């Protein structure tokens, strides 16, 4: 009796630990690849292939590293919370599929655009459109997950006789289009706005002041700063109205923590905008990323103890004790190592560009 309750407590602690690492992995993905994707959305409005090529070249060397955080987040989800992995991804089949098609288009466009002669335009557009669909449908997926999904046990596939097969494991039980709601469509737009802002800040920091791309990115960033502020407010109000679990926290006894947090977010946004207008571009990018970190952490904290609100708690979704222990022992140490060599990679490729110089050297 004593032992089993100890084990329950250990699993609970380990699953909370992995829930935090999962949050960190998703955060690294949206913070890093968000800028790449946003620069790609910016490239949708580029006048010529030279500019699209320059934008692609400005992220050569680390876009694949950034994208890999998504795969790592998937790996952590599968390794620590397979019950969520196997049900949420089933629920999100359609939006994830389209987001993946976007990612595929982008990834091959990076390689093919350099070598192409007559098909340069095609790959330029594949890059830009892929950069738009990936964050949009990732945002839709996030919004859908916040709303939760129905589950049942037994055979998952409909139209198949169970033939005596039973299992206590809960599978996804809804339809193909359950993910699609006004809220999830809105979060898709929200993700595009957030990525657009990050991309603008990234391009400002990446290209020399006075360069054509820098100039365009400057006004783009101004526009998206205001769009992002509006989007944050709409998302918060909407979430408050439809999610009782969020409302209970935000206006519960600890309301002042959330209020202070929100003020800090506004302060970061303000610093990002002022630094941007003073052309401290890299500093502006960092303050902007700070906003992403703060909002993501707040979202993660609002959801606790749920990993999928109303559907899976962190504790119920975790692997058995033995698997959690092994995963923790062998994998936790790699997290700082991964962050370190990714940082080294970004550091090697830092520096300012001009449209002409990168395109030629690409």
């Amino acid at each position, binding site marked *: 009796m004593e032992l089993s309750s100890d084990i329950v407590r250990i699993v609970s602690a380990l699953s909370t630990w992995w829930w935090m690492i999962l949050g960190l992995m998703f955060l690294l993905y949206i913070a890093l690849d968000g800028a790449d994707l946003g620069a790609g959305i910016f490239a949708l409005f580029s006048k010529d292939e030279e500019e699209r090529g320059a934008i692609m070249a400005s992220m*050569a*060397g680390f876009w*694949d*590293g950034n*994208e890999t*955080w998504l795969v*790592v987040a*998937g*790996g952590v*989800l*599968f*390794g620590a919370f*397979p019950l969520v*992995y*196997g*049900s949420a*991804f*089933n629920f999100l*089949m*359609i939006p994830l*599929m389209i987001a*993946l098609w976007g990612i*595929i288009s982008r*990834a*091959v466009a990076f*390689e*093919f655009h350099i*070598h*192409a002669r007559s098909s340069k335009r095609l790959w330029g557009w594949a890059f830009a459109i892929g950069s738009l669909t990936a964050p949009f449908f990732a945002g839709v997926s996030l919004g859908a997950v916040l709303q939760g999904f129905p589950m049942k046990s037994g*055979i*998952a*596939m409909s*139209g*198949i006789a169970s033939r005596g*097969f039973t*299992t*206590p*494991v809960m*599978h*996804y039980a*809804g*339809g*193909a289009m359950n993910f699609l709601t006004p809220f999830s469509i809105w979060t898709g737009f929200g993700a595009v706005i957030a990525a657009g802002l990050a991309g603008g800040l990234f391009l400002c920091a*990446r290209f*020399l002041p006075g360069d054509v791309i820098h100039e365009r990115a400057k006004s783009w960033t101004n526009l998206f700063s205001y769009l992002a502020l509006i989007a944050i407010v709409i998302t918060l109000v909407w979430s408050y109205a439809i999610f009782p679990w969020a409302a209970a926290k935000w206006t519960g006894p600890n309301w002042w923590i959330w209020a202070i947090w929100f003020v800090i977010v506004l302060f970061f946004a303000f610093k990002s905008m002022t630094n941007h207008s003073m052309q401290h571009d890299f500093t502006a990018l960092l303050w902007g990323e700070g906003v992403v970190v703060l909002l993501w952490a707040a979202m993660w904290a609002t959801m606790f103890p749920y990993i999928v609100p109303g559907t899976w708690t962190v504790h119920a979704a975790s*692997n058995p004790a033995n*698997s959690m222990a092994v995963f923790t022992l062998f*994998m936790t140490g*790699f997290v700082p190592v*991964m962050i370190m*060599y990714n940082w080294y*990679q970004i550091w*090697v490729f*830092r*520096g*300012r560009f*001009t449209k002409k*110089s990168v395109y*030629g*050297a690409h």
Partner: protein
Amino acid sequence: MIIENSLPVLLSRLDFAWITSMHILWTPMTIGMSWLLFFMELAWLKSGDERWYKLNRFFEKIFIINFGAGVATGVTMEMAFGILYGPFSQAVGPFFGNILGFETITAFMYEAGFIGLMVFGWGKISKGMHLFATLNVGISSSLSAMWILVANSWMQTPNGVVLKDGLFQVSNWWHAILNDNFIWGFPHMWVATVELALFVFASVSAWFVLKNRNADLFIKLLKPTLLALLIVAPLQIYIGDSAGKDVADTQPTSLAAMEGHFHTYLPDGKPNTSWNLIAIPDVEAGKNLFSIQIPHVLSLLETHTWDGVVKGMDQYPVNERPDVWVPFYAFRVMVAIGFALFFVAIWGNWLRMRGRMNASELRKHPWFLRAVVFSGFLPFLAIWGGWWVREIGRQPWVVFGLMRTYEGVSNMSMAQEIVWFVGYIIFELVVWSGAWYFFSRVIQKGVDDIPHSDTLFHDHGEDHDAAQAGGGHVAPTFAHKPMMHSDR
């Protein structure tokens, strides 16, 4: 008909089979070629021979395109288990999920971290650091293959687990990781990647000799490549044979399918020892409609005795028998290619021994060169064959003997399955045809426009007006960026 061949389940299998089959066209070349690039770079740094540098930079272009295609198709794989086989992912999470987690954290991320340095780091990091990056790409991609093979082999021989609360809980990690199938399965796959990369090298080299472009340069590469193949090709046949025996012991239904072996005993009661060279199998009827048989060969192959009993399909219930057509013929294609490649390796080394390995002599043997060019395509087909044998031979189980495939399929409609299938046919074919088109463009362009390695660390073109992103308004030049080597 088994339920796994009914349309909804079959479509889910096709959905997964298609994306994996297309993904496996890229990853072996990344793994094998990263090691070959490492050795070429090492040869360049050791000998100072500029030709190794040229060859390295040339094949690196192919490597990059290939890697990009591998990433593009690979991100889907990471999500596809949960999307298409959610209940399977949930049940096997405690082991399989952990291993996939190991793979992304220790291998996939590791590889992505170094590949950027390897590809774009020329001139930005020191030579030593670059070599180190290349080495790490080799190690990390091989590590990735190892974890994936651990996970897949465990589906073939699920050792070290107990089924509890609907989940495969691990009772012994060592048994589960070093499962029976993994012991030969991983070496078989890893050596395949090396053999594939070597034949791609040989094939491209032979094409240049055939076209009389940079013939001496490519013969310099062709010689060690063919010599290495003289070891690797027979080694792969040996490993493959051992892996086959392993399948005979642990997955007798899979072996029966790949040999088209239906009847354990002949009508007169003696063991059926015949090996089918070719056959027209009829799984429903449980027999071959037609076959060309060689007596005793099957017993010799599987039991190493003249009259040993090899269990046929008739020893197993009808609803536990896999399809025969694909495993039977895919297996034969793989084996035939394995021997054909060995023959090409012998042919090449025989020519070399007789002093024919130079441009003027080799052009007198155009059929050898053509055979080598053609051999570059065969390993891809052999790898497909091997995986189809493995995956279809395991049916109707997704975890052999423990979980039926239909039990693991996600909750989705046939419309969803078809949308996925059609969408991925388009996307994967665009990736494939695009990559192969650009392979051919890179090869057409050749090595002549690759600048001398001296230019790497001095000439930065227009970069002199580039400033550091982190430095605000100061604008130090690109060439003065801090680098890992001391003479900056």
